[in-house]
Protein backbone atom coordinates (compact mmCIF):
# COMPACT_ATOMS: atom_id res chain seq x y z
CA UNK A 1 0.00 0.00 0.00
CA UNK A 2 1.35 3.33 -1.05
CA UNK A 3 2.03 5.91 1.62
CA UNK A 4 0.92 9.46 0.99
CA UNK A 5 -0.87 12.34 2.59
CA UNK A 6 -3.96 11.17 0.81
CA UNK A 7 -3.69 7.66 2.21
CA UNK A 8 -3.27 9.10 5.66
CA UNK A 9 -6.33 11.25 5.22
CA UNK A 10 -8.38 8.34 3.97
CA UNK A 11 -7.31 6.11 6.83
CA UNK A 12 -7.92 8.83 9.37
CA UNK A 13 -11.56 8.69 8.41
CA UNK A 14 -11.68 4.89 8.44
CA UNK A 15 -10.19 4.58 11.90
CA UNK A 16 -6.85 3.51 10.42
CA UNK A 17 -8.15 0.04 9.84
CA UNK A 18 -6.63 -0.22 6.39
CA UNK A 19 -2.94 -0.08 7.25
CA UNK A 20 -1.14 -3.32 6.64
CA UNK A 21 2.16 -4.53 8.10
CA UNK A 22 5.12 -2.59 6.81
CA UNK A 23 6.79 -5.91 6.10
CA UNK A 24 5.48 -9.48 6.27
CA UNK A 25 6.54 -11.82 9.06
CA UNK A 26 8.02 -14.26 6.57
CA UNK A 27 8.68 -17.90 7.34
CA UNK A 28 12.01 -19.24 6.06
CA UNK A 29 11.84 -21.14 2.77
CA UNK A 30 14.23 -24.04 2.21
CA UNK A 31 16.17 -22.33 -0.54
CA UNK A 32 17.05 -18.86 -1.74
CA UNK A 33 19.21 -17.42 -4.46
CA UNK A 34 20.75 -15.08 -1.97
CA UNK A 35 20.72 -15.18 1.80
CA UNK A 36 21.72 -11.97 3.50
CA UNK A 37 22.82 -12.32 7.10
CA UNK A 38 21.97 -9.23 9.13
CA UNK A 39 18.79 -7.18 9.16
CA UNK A 40 20.45 -3.87 9.78
CA UNK A 41 20.41 -1.00 7.36
CA UNK A 42 23.08 -2.52 5.18
CA UNK A 43 21.55 -5.96 4.88
CA UNK A 44 18.10 -4.59 4.11
CA UNK A 45 19.42 -2.04 1.63
CA UNK A 46 21.33 -4.81 -0.08
CA UNK A 47 18.13 -6.80 -0.41
CA UNK A 48 16.28 -3.77 -1.69
CA UNK A 49 18.82 -3.04 -4.41
CA UNK A 50 19.19 -6.72 -5.35
CA UNK A 51 15.50 -6.60 -6.08
CA UNK A 52 15.25 -3.18 -7.68
CA UNK A 53 18.55 -2.94 -9.53
CA UNK A 54 19.30 -6.56 -10.35
CA UNK A 55 15.91 -8.21 -10.41
CA UNK A 56 16.97 -10.77 -7.83
CA UNK A 57 14.02 -11.27 -5.50
CA UNK A 58 14.39 -14.79 -4.23
CA UNK A 59 16.23 -13.33 -1.30
CA UNK A 60 16.04 -13.74 2.46
CA UNK A 61 17.34 -11.34 5.04
CA UNK A 62 18.03 -13.23 8.26
CA UNK A 63 18.04 -11.20 11.44
CA UNK A 64 18.82 -12.69 14.80
CA UNK A 65 16.71 -10.19 16.73
CA UNK A 66 14.32 -7.57 15.40
CA UNK A 67 15.36 -5.61 12.32
CA UNK A 68 17.31 -2.54 13.26
CA UNK A 69 18.30 -4.03 16.61
CA UNK A 70 21.97 -3.51 15.83
CA UNK A 71 23.82 -0.34 15.10
CA UNK A 72 21.25 0.83 12.59
CA UNK A 73 18.94 1.41 15.53
CA UNK A 74 21.37 3.08 17.84
CA UNK A 75 23.53 5.52 15.93
CA UNK A 76 23.74 9.29 16.08
CA UNK A 77 22.24 9.52 12.59
CA UNK A 78 24.87 11.72 11.01
CA UNK A 79 25.16 11.52 7.25
CA UNK A 80 27.93 13.23 5.33
CA UNK A 81 30.40 12.64 2.54
CA UNK A 82 33.29 14.71 3.82
CA UNK A 83 36.04 12.16 3.37
CA UNK A 84 39.64 12.70 2.45
CA UNK A 85 40.91 9.66 0.63
CA UNK A 86 40.13 8.61 -2.92
CA UNK A 87 39.25 5.10 -1.76
CA UNK A 88 36.43 6.48 0.37
CA UNK A 89 35.19 9.76 -1.00
CA UNK A 90 33.38 8.63 -4.17
CA UNK A 91 31.71 5.87 -2.22
CA UNK A 92 30.34 8.15 0.48
CA UNK A 93 29.32 10.73 -2.08
CA UNK A 94 27.39 8.09 -3.95
CA UNK A 95 25.70 7.34 -0.66
CA UNK A 96 24.84 11.01 -0.23
CA UNK A 97 23.31 11.07 -3.69
CA UNK A 98 21.22 8.06 -2.83
CA UNK A 99 20.10 9.70 0.42
CA UNK A 100 18.98 12.68 -1.58
CA UNK A 101 16.41 10.67 -3.47
CA UNK A 102 15.82 7.96 -0.93
CA UNK A 103 12.43 8.84 0.40
CA UNK A 104 10.76 9.07 -2.98
CA UNK A 105 12.51 5.89 -4.01
CA UNK A 106 11.36 4.03 -0.92
CA UNK A 107 8.02 5.78 -0.51
CA UNK A 108 8.96 6.22 3.12
CA UNK A 109 9.83 9.41 4.91
CA UNK A 110 13.21 8.80 6.52
CA UNK A 111 13.49 12.47 7.48
CA UNK A 112 16.70 12.98 5.58
CA UNK A 113 17.63 16.43 6.73
CA UNK A 114 20.50 18.20 5.02
CA UNK A 115 21.04 20.67 7.81
CA UNK A 116 24.81 20.84 7.46
CA UNK A 117 27.73 19.15 9.20
CA UNK A 118 30.27 21.49 10.72
CA UNK A 119 33.64 20.14 11.89
CA UNK A 120 35.35 22.64 14.15
CA UNK A 121 39.08 23.20 13.97
CA UNK A 122 41.20 24.59 16.75
CA UNK A 123 44.66 25.16 15.32
CA UNK A 124 46.36 26.20 12.12
CA UNK A 125 47.61 22.70 11.50
CA UNK A 126 44.12 21.35 11.88
CA UNK A 127 42.78 24.03 9.56
CA UNK A 128 45.25 22.91 6.93
CA UNK A 129 44.35 19.27 7.41
CA UNK A 130 40.69 20.23 7.01
CA UNK A 131 41.55 22.27 3.93
CA UNK A 132 43.25 19.24 2.48
CA UNK A 133 40.09 17.26 3.08
CA UNK A 134 37.79 20.01 1.82
CA UNK A 135 39.85 20.34 -1.32
CA UNK A 136 39.78 16.60 -1.86
CA UNK A 137 36.00 16.76 -1.58
CA UNK A 138 35.83 19.59 -4.11
CA UNK A 139 37.98 17.61 -6.52
CA UNK A 140 35.37 14.90 -6.25
CA UNK A 141 32.67 17.42 -7.00
CA UNK A 142 31.41 17.45 -3.42
CA UNK A 143 30.44 20.59 -1.55
CA UNK A 144 32.82 21.80 1.14
CA UNK A 145 33.37 25.19 2.72
CA UNK A 146 36.10 26.28 5.05
CA UNK A 147 34.76 28.76 7.56
CA UNK A 148 36.70 31.16 9.69
CA UNK A 149 35.82 31.75 13.28
CA UNK A 150 33.35 34.47 12.35
CA UNK A 151 31.57 32.21 9.93
CA UNK A 152 31.27 29.56 12.60
CA UNK A 153 30.06 32.13 15.07
CA UNK A 154 27.29 33.19 12.77
CA UNK A 155 26.09 29.62 12.44
CA UNK A 156 26.42 28.54 16.06
CA UNK A 157 26.75 31.66 18.19
CA UNK A 158 26.25 29.86 21.47
CA UNK A 159 29.53 27.93 21.42
CA UNK A 160 32.41 29.05 23.64
CA UNK A 161 34.52 31.53 21.71
CA UNK A 162 36.12 33.38 24.60
CA UNK A 163 37.02 31.10 27.42
CA UNK A 164 37.70 27.79 25.77
CA UNK A 165 40.71 25.64 26.54
CA UNK A 166 40.97 24.94 22.82
CA UNK A 167 39.62 28.03 21.10
CA UNK A 168 37.54 27.61 17.98
CA UNK A 169 39.44 28.85 14.94
CA UNK A 170 36.93 27.85 12.30
CA UNK A 171 35.24 24.90 10.72
CA UNK A 172 34.84 22.71 7.69
CA UNK A 173 31.23 22.76 6.60
CA UNK A 174 29.41 20.36 4.37
CA UNK A 175 26.00 21.86 3.86
CA UNK A 176 24.63 18.77 2.20
CA UNK A 177 25.50 16.72 5.25
CA UNK A 178 22.98 16.28 8.01
CA UNK A 179 20.94 13.60 9.67
CA UNK A 180 18.33 11.00 8.86
CA UNK A 181 15.87 9.18 11.07
CA UNK A 182 17.73 5.95 11.69
CA UNK A 183 14.83 3.62 12.42
CA UNK A 184 12.87 4.91 9.46
CA UNK A 185 15.76 4.00 7.19
CA UNK A 186 15.55 0.42 8.40
CA UNK A 187 11.79 0.24 8.14
CA UNK A 188 11.74 1.97 4.79
CA UNK A 189 14.23 -0.43 3.24
CA UNK A 190 12.47 -3.38 4.85
CA UNK A 191 9.14 -2.31 3.46
CA UNK A 192 10.67 -1.62 0.04
CA UNK A 193 12.38 -5.00 -0.09
CA UNK A 194 9.37 -6.85 1.25
CA UNK A 195 7.09 -5.28 -1.32
CA UNK A 196 9.36 -6.64 -4.01
CA UNK A 197 9.26 -10.17 -2.68
CA UNK A 198 12.19 -10.36 -0.30
CA UNK A 199 11.61 -12.45 2.83
CA UNK A 200 12.58 -10.67 6.01
CA UNK A 201 12.97 -13.26 8.70
CA UNK A 202 13.39 -11.98 12.23
CA UNK A 203 14.48 -13.90 15.30
CA UNK A 204 16.56 -16.10 13.05
CA UNK A 205 20.21 -16.28 14.02
CA UNK A 206 22.77 -17.77 11.70
CA UNK A 207 24.76 -20.33 13.67
CA UNK A 208 26.65 -22.11 10.92
CA UNK A 209 27.74 -21.80 7.32
CA UNK A 210 27.80 -24.86 5.11
CA UNK A 211 30.77 -24.88 2.85
CA UNK A 212 31.35 -27.66 0.35
CA UNK A 213 34.56 -27.77 -1.62
CA UNK A 214 35.34 -24.18 -0.84
CA UNK A 215 31.88 -23.01 -1.86
CA UNK A 216 29.10 -21.87 0.38
CA UNK A 217 25.87 -23.83 0.05
CA UNK A 218 23.72 -22.45 2.80
CA UNK A 219 23.37 -21.45 6.41
CA UNK A 220 22.31 -23.09 9.64
CA UNK A 221 20.00 -20.96 11.70
CA UNK A 222 18.02 -21.10 14.88
CA UNK A 223 15.04 -21.63 12.58
CA UNK A 224 16.56 -24.47 10.59
CA UNK A 225 18.89 -24.92 7.67
CA UNK A 226 18.46 -22.72 4.64
CA UNK A 227 20.20 -23.41 1.37
CA UNK A 228 21.47 -20.58 -0.73
CA UNK A 229 23.50 -20.01 -3.87
CA UNK A 230 25.12 -17.01 -2.35
CA UNK A 231 25.48 -15.79 1.19
CA UNK A 232 26.18 -12.17 2.00
CA UNK A 233 27.30 -11.07 5.45
CA UNK A 234 26.27 -7.65 6.72
CA UNK A 235 26.43 -8.16 10.44
CA UNK A 236 28.51 -5.16 11.54
CA UNK A 237 29.67 -5.74 15.13
CA UNK A 238 29.22 -9.48 14.79
CA UNK A 239 31.37 -9.82 11.69
CA UNK A 240 34.22 -11.75 13.27
CA UNK A 241 31.88 -14.27 14.81
CA UNK A 242 29.99 -14.97 11.63
CA UNK A 243 33.17 -15.01 9.56
CA UNK A 244 34.62 -17.51 12.01
CA UNK A 245 31.83 -19.86 11.00
CA UNK A 246 33.61 -20.01 7.65
CA UNK A 247 37.02 -20.27 9.30
CA UNK A 248 37.98 -16.73 8.38
CA UNK A 249 40.04 -14.38 10.52
CA UNK A 250 39.61 -10.75 9.62
CA UNK A 251 41.36 -7.44 10.23
CA UNK A 252 38.47 -6.43 12.48
CA UNK A 253 37.82 -5.97 16.17
CA UNK A 254 34.51 -5.34 17.87
CA UNK A 255 34.42 -2.24 20.01
CA UNK A 256 31.67 -0.51 21.89
CA UNK A 257 30.54 3.00 21.03
CA UNK A 258 28.10 4.85 23.22
CA UNK A 259 25.53 7.41 22.18
CA UNK A 260 23.47 9.81 24.21
CA UNK A 261 20.23 11.72 24.06
CA UNK A 262 19.13 14.61 26.21
CA UNK A 263 15.68 15.51 27.40
CA UNK A 264 13.63 17.15 24.69
CA UNK A 265 14.08 20.89 24.50
CA UNK A 266 12.87 23.53 22.11
CA UNK A 267 15.10 23.90 19.01
CA UNK A 268 18.56 24.94 20.14
CA UNK A 269 20.95 23.79 17.40
CA UNK A 270 20.05 23.38 13.76
CA UNK A 271 23.12 21.69 12.32
CA UNK A 272 25.55 18.95 13.29
CA UNK A 273 28.64 20.21 15.10
CA UNK A 274 31.76 18.24 15.89
CA UNK A 275 34.51 19.26 18.30
CA UNK A 276 37.99 19.11 16.82
CA UNK A 277 40.10 19.06 19.96
CA UNK A 278 38.48 15.95 21.29
CA UNK A 279 35.82 13.62 20.09
CA UNK A 280 32.31 14.98 20.39
CA UNK A 281 29.43 15.53 18.01
CA UNK A 282 25.97 16.85 18.57
CA UNK A 283 22.77 17.55 16.73
CA UNK A 284 19.13 17.86 17.69
CA UNK A 285 16.50 15.38 16.68
CA UNK A 286 13.21 16.52 15.24
CA UNK A 287 11.66 15.45 18.54
CA UNK A 288 13.84 17.87 20.47
CA UNK A 289 16.42 15.60 22.06
CA UNK A 290 20.05 16.55 21.67
CA UNK A 291 21.69 13.50 20.14
CA UNK A 292 25.38 13.33 20.87
CA UNK A 293 28.34 11.06 21.20
CA UNK A 294 32.09 10.83 21.33
CA UNK A 295 34.87 8.34 21.12
CA UNK A 296 34.61 4.58 21.31
CA UNK A 297 35.27 3.05 24.71
CA UNK A 298 38.51 1.73 23.32
CA UNK A 299 38.54 -1.94 24.26
CA UNK A 300 37.14 -5.03 22.59
CA UNK A 301 33.59 -5.67 23.63
CA UNK A 302 30.46 -7.55 22.69
CA UNK A 303 28.51 -6.19 25.62
CA UNK A 304 26.30 -3.56 23.93
CA UNK A 305 27.09 -1.10 26.67
CA UNK A 306 30.03 0.98 27.71
CA UNK A 307 31.58 2.38 30.83
CA UNK A 308 31.70 5.58 32.81
CA UNK A 309 34.98 7.18 31.66
CA UNK A 310 33.69 7.78 28.15
CA UNK A 311 30.41 9.07 29.51
CA UNK A 312 32.29 11.65 31.52
CA UNK A 313 34.58 12.46 28.64
CA UNK A 314 31.70 13.05 26.27
CA UNK A 315 29.83 15.32 28.65
CA UNK A 316 32.99 17.24 29.52
CA UNK A 317 33.58 17.84 25.85
CA UNK A 318 30.01 18.95 25.38
CA UNK A 319 30.36 21.50 28.15
CA UNK A 320 33.73 22.54 26.76
CA UNK A 321 32.31 23.72 23.46
CA UNK A 322 28.81 24.63 24.57
CA UNK A 323 28.78 25.93 28.17
CA UNK A 324 25.06 26.64 27.96
CA UNK A 325 24.42 22.91 28.22
CA UNK A 326 25.13 22.98 31.97
CA UNK A 327 21.51 22.64 33.05
CA UNK A 328 20.40 20.40 30.21
CA UNK A 329 20.07 16.80 31.24
CA UNK A 330 21.01 13.68 29.43
CA UNK A 331 18.18 11.27 29.38
CA UNK A 332 19.61 8.01 28.21
CA UNK A 333 22.72 6.50 26.79
CA UNK A 334 23.44 3.16 25.21
CA UNK A 335 26.06 1.25 23.31
CA UNK A 336 26.49 -0.35 19.93
CA UNK A 337 29.08 -2.76 18.59
CA UNK A 338 31.48 -1.30 16.09
CA UNK A 339 33.15 -3.50 13.53
CA UNK A 340 36.40 -1.55 13.74
CA UNK A 341 38.67 -2.34 10.85
CA UNK A 342 42.41 -2.01 11.09
CA UNK A 343 42.59 1.06 8.88
CA UNK A 344 39.27 2.55 9.86
CA UNK A 345 37.67 2.02 6.46
CA UNK A 346 35.11 -0.53 5.31
CA UNK A 347 35.39 -3.71 3.32
CA UNK A 348 32.96 -4.73 0.59
CA UNK A 349 34.47 -7.73 -1.08
CA UNK A 350 34.40 -11.39 -1.94
CA UNK A 351 35.94 -13.76 0.58
CA UNK A 352 38.24 -16.72 -0.03
CA UNK A 353 35.08 -18.87 0.16
CA UNK A 354 33.20 -18.96 -3.13
CA UNK A 355 29.76 -17.44 -2.92
CA UNK A 356 30.42 -15.84 0.45
CA UNK A 357 30.56 -12.07 0.46
CA UNK A 358 31.67 -9.63 3.10
CA UNK A 359 30.33 -6.21 4.01
CA UNK A 360 32.03 -4.99 7.18
CA UNK A 361 34.49 -2.68 8.85
CA UNK A 362 32.05 0.23 9.16
CA UNK A 363 33.51 1.44 12.38
CA UNK A 364 31.38 4.22 13.82
CA UNK A 365 30.54 5.67 10.43
CA UNK A 366 28.46 3.17 8.55
CA UNK A 367 25.02 4.68 8.95
CA UNK A 368 25.71 7.32 6.35
CA UNK A 369 26.97 4.54 4.11
CA UNK A 370 23.77 2.54 4.29
CA UNK A 371 22.40 3.32 0.81
CA UNK A 372 25.71 3.03 -1.03
CA UNK A 373 26.73 0.01 0.95
CA UNK A 374 23.52 -1.74 -0.03
CA UNK A 375 23.87 -0.59 -3.60
CA UNK A 376 27.49 -1.69 -3.99
CA UNK A 377 27.09 -4.91 -2.06
CA UNK A 378 24.09 -5.86 -4.16
CA UNK A 379 26.13 -5.17 -7.27
CA UNK A 380 28.99 -7.33 -6.02
CA UNK A 381 26.72 -10.19 -5.04
CA UNK A 382 24.72 -10.04 -8.26
CA UNK A 383 27.58 -9.53 -10.71
CA UNK A 384 30.60 -10.81 -8.82
CA UNK A 385 32.49 -7.66 -9.53
CA UNK A 386 32.80 -4.52 -7.47
CA UNK A 387 30.75 -1.45 -8.21
CA UNK A 388 33.34 1.18 -9.24
CA UNK A 389 32.96 3.57 -6.30
CA UNK A 390 33.59 0.68 -3.90
CA UNK A 391 36.47 -0.84 -5.81
CA UNK A 392 39.08 0.19 -3.27
CA UNK A 393 37.25 -1.33 -0.31
CA UNK A 394 39.11 -4.60 -0.73
CA UNK A 395 40.00 -7.20 1.82
CA UNK A 396 43.52 -7.73 0.48
CA UNK A 397 44.55 -4.12 1.00
CA UNK A 398 46.01 -4.90 4.40
CA UNK A 399 48.37 -7.39 2.86
CA UNK A 400 49.28 -5.23 -0.12
CA UNK A 401 49.58 -1.98 1.79
CA UNK A 402 46.89 -0.14 -0.20
CA UNK A 403 45.34 1.03 3.03
CA UNK A 404 42.59 3.61 3.36
CA UNK A 405 43.61 5.24 6.60
CA UNK A 406 41.80 8.57 6.91
CA UNK A 407 43.23 9.30 10.33
CA UNK A 408 46.70 7.92 9.85
CA UNK A 409 46.29 5.99 13.06
CA UNK A 410 47.72 2.72 11.80
CA UNK A 411 46.73 -0.81 12.65
CA UNK A 412 45.10 0.00 15.95
CA UNK A 413 41.33 -0.08 15.69
CA UNK A 414 40.65 1.86 18.86
CA UNK A 415 42.53 4.85 17.53
CA UNK A 416 40.48 5.22 14.35
Amino acid at each position, binding site marked *: MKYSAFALLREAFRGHRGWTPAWRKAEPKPHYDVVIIGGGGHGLATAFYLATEHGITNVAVLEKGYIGSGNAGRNTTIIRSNYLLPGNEPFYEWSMKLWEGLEQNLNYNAMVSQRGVLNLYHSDAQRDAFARRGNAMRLHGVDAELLHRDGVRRMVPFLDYDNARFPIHGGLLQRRGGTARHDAVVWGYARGADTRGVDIIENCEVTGLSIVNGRVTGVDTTRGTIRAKKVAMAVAGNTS*RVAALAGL*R*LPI*ESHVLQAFVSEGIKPAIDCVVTFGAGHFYISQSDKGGLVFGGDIDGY*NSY*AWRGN*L*PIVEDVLEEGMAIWPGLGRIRMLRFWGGLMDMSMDGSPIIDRTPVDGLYLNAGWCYGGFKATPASGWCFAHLVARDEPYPVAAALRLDRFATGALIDERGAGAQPNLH
Partner: protein
Amino acid sequence: MRINCPYCGPRGNEEFAYLGDATVRRPDPAAEDAAAQFYEYVYLRDNPAGSHRELWYHGGGCRSWLVVTRNIRTHEISDVAFADAGDKP
Protein backbone atom coordinates in the same frame (compact mmCIF):
# COMPACT_ATOMS: atom_id res chain seq x y z
CA MET B 1 35.56 -1.03 34.39
CA ARG B 2 38.14 -1.64 37.11
CA ILE B 3 41.39 -3.42 36.45
CA ASN B 4 43.25 -4.86 39.37
CA CYS B 5 46.80 -3.83 38.60
CA PRO B 6 49.15 -6.27 40.30
CA TYR B 7 51.28 -3.35 41.38
CA CYS B 8 48.82 -0.54 42.12
CA GLY B 9 45.65 -2.40 43.03
CA PRO B 10 42.23 -1.88 41.44
CA ARG B 11 41.94 1.20 39.25
CA GLY B 12 39.43 2.61 36.79
CA ASN B 13 40.06 1.83 33.16
CA GLU B 14 40.56 5.52 32.41
CA GLU B 15 44.07 5.11 33.84
CA PHE B 16 44.94 2.50 31.25
CA ALA B 17 45.59 2.50 27.53
CA TYR B 18 44.36 -0.44 25.53
CA LEU B 19 46.35 -2.13 22.82
CA GLY B 20 44.51 -5.34 22.00
CA ASP B 21 45.06 -9.03 21.55
CA ALA B 22 47.89 -10.33 23.74
CA THR B 23 48.07 -13.73 22.11
CA VAL B 24 49.70 -12.61 18.88
CA ARG B 25 53.49 -12.92 18.82
CA ARG B 26 55.83 -10.75 16.84
CA PRO B 27 57.21 -13.10 14.17
CA ASP B 28 60.79 -13.69 13.24
CA PRO B 29 61.58 -11.01 10.66
CA ALA B 30 64.16 -13.30 9.12
CA ALA B 31 61.63 -16.04 8.39
CA GLU B 32 61.08 -16.80 4.75
CA ASP B 33 57.39 -15.98 4.96
CA ALA B 34 57.97 -13.02 7.24
CA ALA B 35 55.71 -10.80 5.14
CA ALA B 36 52.78 -13.18 5.51
CA GLN B 37 53.46 -13.72 9.18
CA PHE B 38 53.70 -10.02 9.90
CA TYR B 39 50.47 -9.43 8.01
CA GLU B 40 48.77 -11.87 10.35
CA TYR B 41 50.49 -10.44 13.40
CA VAL B 42 49.64 -6.85 12.64
CA TYR B 43 46.17 -7.24 11.15
CA LEU B 44 44.31 -10.48 11.80
CA ARG B 45 42.43 -10.95 15.02
CA ASP B 46 40.29 -13.71 16.47
CA ASN B 47 38.09 -11.11 18.11
CA PRO B 48 36.32 -13.81 20.13
CA ALA B 49 33.05 -13.27 21.93
CA GLY B 50 34.34 -14.78 25.13
CA SER B 51 37.59 -14.99 26.97
CA HIS B 52 40.21 -12.61 25.57
CA ARG B 53 43.79 -12.09 26.63
CA GLU B 54 44.65 -8.51 25.95
CA LEU B 55 47.28 -5.88 26.58
CA TRP B 56 46.63 -2.83 28.73
CA TYR B 57 49.16 -0.23 29.73
CA HIS B 58 48.91 1.39 33.14
CA GLY B 59 50.07 4.75 31.87
CA GLY B 60 48.16 6.62 34.56
CA GLY B 61 49.80 4.55 37.27
CA CYS B 62 52.84 2.31 37.45
CA ARG B 63 53.52 2.22 33.69
CA SER B 64 53.33 -1.54 33.49
CA TRP B 65 52.06 -3.37 30.48
CA LEU B 66 49.55 -5.91 31.69
CA VAL B 67 47.97 -8.99 30.22
CA VAL B 68 44.34 -8.93 31.22
CA THR B 69 42.10 -11.94 30.71
CA ARG B 70 38.63 -10.59 30.22
CA ASN B 71 35.34 -11.93 29.00
CA ILE B 72 34.43 -9.75 26.10
CA ARG B 73 30.71 -10.39 26.46
CA THR B 74 30.40 -9.65 30.16
CA HIS B 75 33.60 -7.65 30.77
CA GLU B 76 34.34 -9.97 33.68
CA ILE B 77 38.07 -10.02 34.38
CA SER B 78 39.48 -13.33 35.50
CA ASP B 79 43.18 -12.56 35.56
CA VAL B 80 45.65 -9.69 35.42
CA ALA B 81 49.37 -10.24 35.14
CA PHE B 82 52.45 -8.26 34.20
CA ALA B 83 53.31 -8.69 30.53
CA ASP B 84 56.92 -8.66 31.56
CA ALA B 85 56.72 -11.72 33.69
CA GLY B 86 59.70 -11.40 35.92
CA ASP B 87 63.05 -10.00 36.70
CA LYS B 88 64.80 -12.63 34.68
CA PRO B 89 68.40 -11.91 33.87
